[in-house]
């Protein structure tokens, strides 16, 4: 069994107040004796950690603050998410990374896989081998075995036993979260939507940093109720005529909110996110009856992502959301040097072209230097609609 980290980092005093708060909140969790698992990817089966009574937290960083540190080791022409996440790990500047007793990564893109090898030198790391096909028996068998292996690693590291009943309860709880988050973003299927795309993103992104399940569920329900009530009372924060945009591509949050801002400042509204931050992880429910490990494996393996080949599930979800949300255009955001998503932009573009849905690809990174250029592209795209 591993020894859990409970002390603040040495450079704690140098942090600004907001970050100190983040560290203190995590320290409180640790002082209660709870273990923390950090993860990077929507494919990570959070039910395993939940069943073990652990706190799980997303470690994908969204700021360029630590990229210079990371580039002392990693190549410059690598995706900013990978560089920044690694940078936060080596500088002790992220409370979630710092307090993670176990970090779980998947074999998704090449950049992440090789970065994890280096991360493993400084953090207690477990790698899940994610297949790249979603519809063969062998791929499913491998993935199921990987989930069993993860369960065993968690049991060993944290000295717990995870039973089927615990897993079933975790599946049920995660389904409740998924249903509530889906209910929130589906409110924007209305015309006009009751919230801006920026607000929706902040709710979706923020929900992953609420660590008490009961509180989280209550807060989500509250958010739904208050949005509905305001709408019923006639509040219309978004004009009826605003063009309706779907965002797809790489995960979003933090600095990349700039993409949503330039779209909405140009007069459109983002109604739905078909990415890791949005619909992708809440669209379906995990089956509750039957063998929980099999159900978990089946649920997660079917998530659409550019790391899969062929990535038919992404197109299926994209089509469905375009219809349901009556979108006028699709904007894809990719992070610089993200090969899977950048290459797949062509597939997405031609697929949407056939359906007559306008498409814009924006490539960006974690700097703010390109806001003018993004605004010109987004503005021109909206003028096209």
């Amino acid at each position, binding site marked *: 069994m591993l020894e859990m980290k409970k002390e603040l980092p040495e450079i704690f005093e140098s942090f600004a107040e907001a970050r100190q708060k983040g560290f203190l909140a995590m320290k409180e969790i640790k002082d209660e004796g709870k273990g923390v698992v950090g993860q990077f990817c929507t494919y990570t089966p959070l039910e395993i950690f939940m069943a073990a009574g652990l706190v799980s937290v997303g470690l994908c960083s969204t700021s360029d603050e630590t990229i210079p540190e990371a580039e002392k080791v990693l190549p410059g022409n690598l995706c900013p998410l990978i560089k920044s996440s690694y940078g936060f790990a080596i500088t002790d500047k992220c409370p979630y990374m710092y307090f993670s007793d176990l970090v779980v990564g998947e074999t998704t893109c090449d950049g992440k896989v090789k970065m994890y090898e280096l991360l493993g030198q400084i953090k207690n790391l477990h790698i899940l081998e994610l297949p790249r096909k979603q519809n063969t028996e062998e791929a499913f068998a491998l993935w199921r075995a990987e989930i069993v292996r993860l369960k065993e690693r968690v049991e060993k590291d944290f000295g717990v036993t995870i039973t089927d009943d615990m897993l079933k309860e975790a599946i049920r709880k995660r389904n409740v979260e998924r249903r509530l988050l889906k209910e929130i973003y589906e409110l924007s299927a209305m015309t006009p939507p009751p919230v801006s795309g920026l607000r929706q993103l902040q709710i979706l992104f923020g929900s992953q940093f609420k660590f008490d399940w009961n509180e989280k569920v209550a807060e989500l329900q509250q958010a739904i109720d208050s949005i509905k009530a305001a709408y019923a009372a006639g509040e219309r924060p978004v004009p009826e005529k605003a063009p309706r945009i779907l965002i797809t591509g790489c995960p979003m949050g933090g600095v990349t909110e700039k993409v949503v801002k330039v779209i909405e400042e140009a007069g459109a509204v983002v109604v739905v996110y078909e990415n890791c931050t949005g619909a992708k992880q809440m669209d379906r429910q995990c089956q509750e009856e039957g063998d929980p490990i099999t159900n978990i494996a089946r649920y997660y393996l079917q998530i659409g992502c550019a790391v899969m080949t062929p990535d038919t599930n992404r197109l299926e979800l994209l089509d469905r959301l375009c219809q349901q949300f009556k979108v006028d255009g699709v904007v894809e955001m990719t992070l610089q040097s993200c090969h899977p998503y950048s290459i797949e932009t062509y597939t997405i573009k031609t697929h949407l072209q056939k359906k007559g849905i306008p498409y814009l690809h924006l490539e960006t990174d974690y700097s703010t230097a*390109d806001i*003018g*250029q993004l605004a*010109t*592209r987004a*503005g*021109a795209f909206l*003028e*096209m609609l």
Partner: protein
Amino acid sequence: MNASAIVAGIDCGSAACKGVLMQDGAIVAKAVKPTGWNPRETAEELLREMLLQCGPAAGPEGIPGGITVIATGYGRVAIPFAARAVTEITCHSRGAEYLLPGVRTVIDIGGQDSKAISLHNGKVLAFQMNDKCAAGTGRFLEMSAARMGVTLRELDGLLESGESCRLSSMCAVFADSEIVSLLAAGKSRQEVAGGVIDAVASRAAALAARVEVGLPLLLTGGLADLEGLRKALAVQLGCQVKTSPLSRFAGAIGAALS
């Protein structure tokens, strides 16, 4: 002059500020100025200059009421007296349709960016921009000309020989030192100039390939009157490349029509 019917289009680019006054669909005045450090002031002077071309209606005290100003280009948001701002993508398309009705592709090589637009009836269907790197832009060409001790106009003259040598670097900074090396190695200015133009044309052609080139194709922007560039582009794209004497004003015309 009936000032109420006049619309001003101002295309405030990174290098030059272009303007037109239009009345009943006709251009009644036009002017160009280096953008300089203060786009707002430059645009104001430009407008005043154009109004003077139309007659004494415009006093020095400012913009006469009744004239609608529409701004485009990178400086579009810096012009407080503009009624609205429209992106240069939309404006170049509308302006190109005005200059060459039926145009299907626009290639604009500007000071700090280059773009390719596919359009139909003046409406944008798809566009590609290169604006994070100086490779293939007017700035790249200007810098290369300066390195060879010639003006852009003279550089165009050097291209008449049809000679060319290959530049291996697309990066504006590295190409600069490569030009020095090539000249030092005894390459003629004609050959180096040919290499520079080919580099710009191949970048523009690569952008155009991503939007699907339809004909006719119009070259717009400040470099459109460089005959050598037009020819090099035609070779790279394998199709006819048209220009207009007013190509430089395409963005401003499009703004006035927006």
